[in-house]
């Protein structure tokens, strides 16, 4: 990063323009797995945002003392400790949701979004911009999760946060729940559609056509 970019732009850039999920392909696993209902999606978003912000802050503070050769291990240990704390807090106070999230909370440890931000931004920036950047990315991730979670819960069960929105057919209404929305394939379809929608509006994100199978292309990372 050249110069000192404005804090506000660091915060808002990852929301749509450089969204971690739809553009940088980071943190996909949990984005799809926990979005069968809005409540789990919100919990997961909050947990991830807290972890990534705190991890970025801690790593940024000690960035001059981490030897380069073992930096990945140091970062993973810091992230894993934070995740253990979050996991224990969820188990203590929100046991039902913690059961629903199963191993996916623990998997924040290996969420490439967290490691990606600490590795590419927090490691070379002072704490305040690092935490702002992490917060922005956490919010960008949350945005995608909440949208997908809301669509899947609304059309899969006719509810939002457990409250009935669409009157169900078996209770005298007109809406028949789409069971497919709760199954894994719909997560992929929705995210694919969302990527398409974002890239149709912001055409600069669209990838170049790759004609010819032999042309070696860079991995999307």
């Amino acid at each position: 990063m050249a110069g000192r970019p404005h804090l506000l732009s660091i915060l808002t850039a990852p929301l749509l323009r450089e969204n971690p999920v739809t553009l940088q392909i980071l943190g996909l696993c949990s984005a799809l797995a926990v979005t069968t209902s809005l409540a789990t999606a919100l919990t997961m978003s909050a947990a991830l945002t807290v972890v990534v912000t705190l991890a970025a802050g801690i790593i940024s503070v000690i960035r001059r003392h981490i030897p380069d050769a073992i930096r990945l291990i140091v970062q993973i240990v810091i992230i894993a400790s934070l995740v253990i704390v979050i996991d224990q807090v969820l188990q203590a106070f929100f046991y039902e949701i913690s059961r629903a999230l199963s191993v996916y909370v623990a998997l924040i440890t290996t969420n490439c979004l967290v490691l990606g931000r600490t590795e590419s931004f927090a490691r070379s920036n002072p704490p305040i911009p690092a935490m702002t950047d992490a917060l922005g990315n956490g919010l960008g991730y949350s945005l995608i999760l909440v949208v997908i979670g809301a669509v899947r819960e609304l059309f899969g069960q006719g509810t939002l946060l457990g409250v009935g929105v669409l009157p169900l057919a078996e209770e005298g209404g007109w809406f028949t729940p789409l069971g497919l929305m709760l199954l894994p394939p719909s997560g992929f379809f929705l995210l694919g559609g969302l990527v398409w929608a974002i890239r149709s509006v912001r055409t600069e994100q669209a990838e170049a056509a790759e004609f010819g199978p032999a042309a070696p292309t860079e991995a999307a990372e």
Partner: protein
Amino acid sequence: MSNLAALFLEASFVSNMPLTLFLGLCTFIALSRRPEAALGLGVAMTGVMGVTVPLNQAVYDLLLAPGAWAWAGLPDLDLYYLSLIAFIGVIAATVQLLELVLERYFPATHAAFGVFLPLLTVQCAILAGSLFMVERRYTLVESAVFGLGSGFGFAVAVVMLGAIRARLAYADLPAGLRGLGITFILAGLMSLGFASFALMAAQ
């Protein structure tokens, strides 16, 4: 014996890591552009999961499970909360060791998929394999079969996706759908196919 075979099939097809559990998606999507790269990733995944899941089972059973330190006069010690850090450590060490061994004795293999090995440390499917092993209380043999099965399922899925994406190079897609968008939709279609395995298992 037939139980173990069933466990292998269940781990590789019914609860396929990327397509039904959404695990390891980042590498699944990012490295499936070319079939050769996908094959390298698949082989590396199978090897690493086949080793780390049973290894973590041993670590959990001997050191971390509630009551594991009873022989030392500490029957109440429960180190369960340390399992996350312990598992990550074992995985990182295994990946590093595997890389050293391959580099020393099988340089050709190492050159073929050496790039992917360090990435596997932060592969969520591998950590998830160990976490599921604890949640489902597998024994040592079962966890070895489960690890191999999950890795194999991942390899099958990623090679298939790589092959489909290579064919897509000729397709004329809408600009916004190219690359990431169409890959998600492909994965969704494959996931529908794998969902039928779940139905077969239920019958």
